[in-house]
């Protein structure tokens, strides 16, 4: 199964048309695919809170958004998630590379990894953890749920999901 293609197809099936990204090595493949897929408007952002602002605007413009980012960004965006996405009841699927999990080779990545789920739980953000490639089949239902609830959703994708480092 091509995970990247499965992700894009789930996004398209759920009428996501606006995607913003901040790179992570683990996300390189999916970002490249988004850039080259005519079904999506891809607007790279320089920081993840900026990206969430773009997504808020896109949602109000009538286009379903998605942000693709690394888990370190959960730390960057706490205020934006609470004061923008949640305060205004906006849906936002966040496809997040979950660095610092089993197989990680860069020790410092574990420092934010241990805070990631705790921060998401503190923010009452609905959170899903993809550990095996076949978990991608749940993305369709998660996206549907995200737009139905008009809430942010975190989809944590660890190294094992992406096939190891």
């Amino acid at each position, binding site marked *: 199964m091509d995970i990247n293609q499965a992700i894009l197809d789930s996004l398209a099936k759920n009428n996501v*048309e606006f995607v913003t990204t901040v790179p992570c090595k683990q996300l390189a493949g999916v970002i490249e695919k988004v850039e080259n897929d005519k079904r999506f408007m891809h607007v790279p952002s320089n920081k993840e*809170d900026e*990206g969430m*602002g773009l997504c808020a*605007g896109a949602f109000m413009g009538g286009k379903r958004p998605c942000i693709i980012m690394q888990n370190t960004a959960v730390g960057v965006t706490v*205020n*934006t998630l609470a004061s923008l996405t949640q*305060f205004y009841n906006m849906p936002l699927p966040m496809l997040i590379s979950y660095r610092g999990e089993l197989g990680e080779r860069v020790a410092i990545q574990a420092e934010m990894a241990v805070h990631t789920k705790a921060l998401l739980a503190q923010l009452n953000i609905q959170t899903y953890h993809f550990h095996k490639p076949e978990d991608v089949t749940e993305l369709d239902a998660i996206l549907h749920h995200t737009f139905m609830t008009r809430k942010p959703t975190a989809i944590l994708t660890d190294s094992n999901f992406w096939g190891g480092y």
Partner: protein
Amino acid sequence: MIRSEIIKNLVPVLKDQLVVCNIGLPSQELHMMGDQPSNFYMLGTMGLCSSIGLGLALTQKAKVISIDGDGSILTNLGTLPTIANNVAHNFILLIIDNGSYGSTGDQPTYTGMKTSLAKVAEACGCDNVIECQAEEAVNVMKTAIAGDKMTIIVCKCESGNIPVPVIELDGPVIRHRFMEEVKRKNA
């Protein structure tokens, strides 16, 4: 002239336009002097006014005006390269540059010192950057609205504030009535 006078002068020009307004006093002033359903008041997340406006402009047809400030642009300086490289000709970014963090008590920002936001915007690749004085704001805005080019306006003014009430609208109410206006304009 201070920011609240610029906003007061702009209210007739902004009538029925989609306006995304910066956090704090700018939103409170606009709300007090010219509330309308097509105003989106940011009540949190300093810095994201221009990002919300760009996302909105890129995804629908109607004109979008972001009313931002020098302090919040400095907070999210990465927005200018994104704007420059993802051109939306229905987007107008008005940066009211009073050289201070107005909402927090007019502490000075660097734009009142050596930093020129107009030059920063140009260096970031923005094509149509206009620096003007407070007195020219209405005419510059009228021209930008009548035109068909993305415009970045840096409007210099004095710092200073007037007393204004806080906005008591709920977030989803602001968002819902704003989105109804977006739909109406794109129907």
